[in-house]
């Protein structure tokens, strides 16, 4: 628990932290690439044939040979492996089998749409979760009902079903919102709500428990003794406690958002990484799958580092440890 003294010590600690995170990220990227590279080779089947559309495509021997040469599949496995790692270091993710385009430019095109969707959903989920947690903390008796309800929503309502129900309600019955992406801001509402609600349910439940503990803790009592109002106790003291478990669950939230994005982008016919991934998986377009996996693994590592930082800011107890 000793804290480095002075600006220099703190800078050195920050640099060490940054270096550790960067090394961790590099390790994860290498491992994901390696797992996919050798995983695909363990499955029976000819990769060259897969590039040409699978065994059903009846590709000629010449076409197969040409593809093998083009993608370096005639080289020994080890050479192929290190060649791929070498390209990866330079930021080259190869060409998509199905779209015949560089994977990196495809990802660059799709990333903003998914990022917008995910960030808006995250913000909405936090607002709803904090709101629900505060409300249920203030209104004692109905709170336990709300709590178990929230948990069930968070754990049991799949994105595809929620999306269908929302479309049914708001697009087909009421006609307020478009059922599929129209490119307008209106078209974003249903996808964002679909992604945010299960997340909010789960976060809200965890935040509520933490908030309840905080409102009954000694520091809340001492604040009340200093004639702090209940609202003051809530906003100045308990909200921070509610945020901490929410931040700690960022990794989980990321998982929920990214798997939800695959479903939601497909249902609402939105562009984005999720739908790109699904198409790539369906067509077994391995370079594209690897690319999406690498981008999201990198994003995950980044999210974890940021949540680590945010936790240090929100929770003085973990600082310096």
């Amino acid at each position: 628990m000793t804290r480095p003294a002075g600006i220099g010590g703190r800078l050195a600690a920050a640099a060490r932290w940054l270096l550790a995170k960067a090394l961790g990220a590099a390790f994860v990227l290498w491992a994901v690439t390696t797992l996919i590279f050798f995983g695909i080779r363990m499955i029976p089947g000819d990769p060259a044939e897969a590039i040409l559309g699978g065994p059903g495509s009846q590709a000629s021997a010449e076409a197969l040979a040409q593809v093998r040469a083009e993608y370096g599949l005639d080289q020994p496995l080890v050479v192929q492996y290190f060649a791929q790692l070498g390209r990866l270091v330079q930021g080259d993710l190869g060409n998509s089998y199905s779209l015949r385009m560089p994977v990196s430019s495809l990802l660059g095109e799709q990333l903003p749409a998914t990022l917008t969707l995910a960030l808006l959903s995250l913000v909405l989920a936090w607002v709803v979760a904090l709101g629900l947690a505060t409300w249920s903390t203030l209104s004692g008796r109905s709170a336990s009902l709300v709590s178990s309800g929230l948990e069930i929503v968070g754990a049991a309502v799949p994105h595809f079903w929620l999306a269908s129900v929302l479309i049914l309600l708001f697009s087909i019955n009421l006609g307020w919102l478009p059922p599929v992406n129209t490119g307008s801001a209106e078209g974003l509402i249903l996808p964002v709500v679909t992604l945010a609600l299960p997340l909010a349910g789960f976060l809200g439940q965890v935040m509520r428990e933490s908030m309840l503990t905080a409102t009954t803790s000694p520091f809340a009592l001492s604040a009340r003794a200093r004639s702090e109002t209940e609202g003051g106790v809530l906003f100045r003291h308990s909200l921070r406690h509610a945020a901490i478990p929410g931040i700690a669950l960022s990794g989980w939230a990321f998982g929920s958002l990214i798997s939800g994005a695959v479903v939601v982008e497909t249902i609402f016919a939105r562009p984005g990484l999720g739908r790109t991934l699904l198409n790539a998986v369906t067509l077994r377009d391995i370079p594209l799958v690897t690319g999406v996996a690498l981008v999201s693994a990198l994003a995950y590592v980044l999210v974890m580092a940021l949540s680590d930082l945010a936790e240090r800011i929100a929770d003085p107890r973990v600082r310096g440890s």
Partner: protein
Amino acid sequence: MTIMANFRRRVPGPSAHTRLKVTVPEMLAGVVVLSLLAAVAFPALLAPYNPLAINPPDAFQGPSLEHWFGTDESGRDIYSRVIFGARPSLLIGAAATAIGVGLALALGSLAGLGGRVLDFGVGRLLEVLFALPGLLLALVFIAIAGPGVVTSTVAVGLSTAPGYARIIRGQIIQVRGSGMVEAAVVLGRGRAQVVRRHLLPNALSPVFVIATLGLGQAVVWAASLSFLGLGEPPPAAEWGAMLAAGRTYLTTAWWMTFFPGLFIVFTAAASTVLGRGLQRRTVR
């Protein structure tokens, strides 16, 4: 991932009486589970129609007294299909959970009992798998192994395993440092005996909780994969496959997606409530 997060929270101990009392949601969950089991065991008794018999003149009928949940694009009765679908759907969920828990047991015990090097290795592997959270790992696995009901079941099991493995590893390490293990070592018990008599039985108690909580999650994830067209293909009477078939008609025949989805929600909710109840009674 939900399960992992559930485990992180420890509600400060209520009295034994309130801890053991059966709550209303738990009773409802019990009723849901019993009904589902009845559908699994005797689908023909509960379903009025043959789940696969097509009847084109009756296609796309909305819910009515004759067809409670409506009919699909070939005039098949959705209610009958949902009832018959319970068996394959729950079987897929159970198989995926078994795969996930089995893998997690192997990894968790390796890390918890295998010494520092193995613990480090397993820890790094889990870190990598965690970087592909939710359905991502499952999708990558399907991209490698190809779509289908078997691969999607394995994929769901695989993507749940890292979270479970971390819980089991933590549990083993906690028991390893406990007084009873210390006492057994002081009494001169051999390593194998300590592992068999103390570590495994105590570390395994949360496995039942994990499996109960995880079953609902597995059913949801398997259904999501089917919905995306990567699992059992239609026209099989399986909930995921029914969702996949209904996806095309979402805006015209909502009942094709709504009712199979509702049963998935019931299953997942019941498994969450029961799993939490079990956890409240066993994990301290």
